[in-house]
């Protein structure tokens, strides 16, 4: 079992551009959560997807959107990138919406210039 996989691992964008990050959950998991981790900070919750719908959302603007596919994989989209969006984006999966243990991917490092 490869666990949670994320792509790409690193990417560089310029201000105003759009980015799409991808996540495949651990086998047997149906719920995906996304977190943003700025340098020196703990991860911050962006949103959670379950049954292809956004179920929970953190304090992030509408520029952050997502999607979950029938195979439970997920995408995170960020529009109109700002310098402050530079961060490590972590995907975490769990079994069921209330799953107590989150399994994290290694993250996608986004740099906005």
């Amino acid at each position, binding site marked *: 079992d490869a*666990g*949670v996989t994320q792509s790409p691992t690193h990417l560089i964008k310029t201000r105003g551009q759009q980015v799409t990050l991808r996540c495949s959950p651990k086998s047997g998991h149906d*719920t995906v*959560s996304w*977190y943003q981790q700025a340098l*020196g*900070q*703990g*991860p*911050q*919750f962006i949103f*959670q997807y379950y049954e292809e719908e956004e*179920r*929970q959302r*953190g304090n992030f603007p509408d520029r952050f959107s997502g999607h979950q596919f029938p195979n439970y994989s997920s995408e995170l989209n960020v529009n109109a990138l700002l310098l402050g969006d530079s961060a490590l984006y*972590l995907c*975490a999966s*769990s079994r069921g*919406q*209330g*799953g*107590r*243990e*989150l*399994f*994290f*991917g*290694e*993250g996608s490092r986004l740099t906005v210039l």
Partner: protein
Amino acid sequence: AQRVTQPEKLLSVFKGAPVELKCNYSYSGSPELFWYVQYSRQRLQLLLRHISRESIKGFTADLNKGETSFHLKKPFAQEEDSAMYYCAPRYGTSYGKLTFGQGTILTVHP
């Protein structure tokens, strides 16, 4: 706002010494408390959760509702315990929404 405070960004101890990583959370109902750990070059992973009252790798954590604290303790630290530790409460029915603290980097010297 729900907040988590880990007052120490860095904590250094010698092998065999006791270690305590502090965590205080804002009160909002009865949160479920977790500790996550990230070892060097590894992904973030669950260390323990208060609801199961378990000891993992010699670590325990007691939930003190009066002080709203969930400190992580180990009586005899080992070099392999060196890592970044995050306290993370989950409030109410927030399911996958964990509120992470800033983390504490623990270094255990030989």
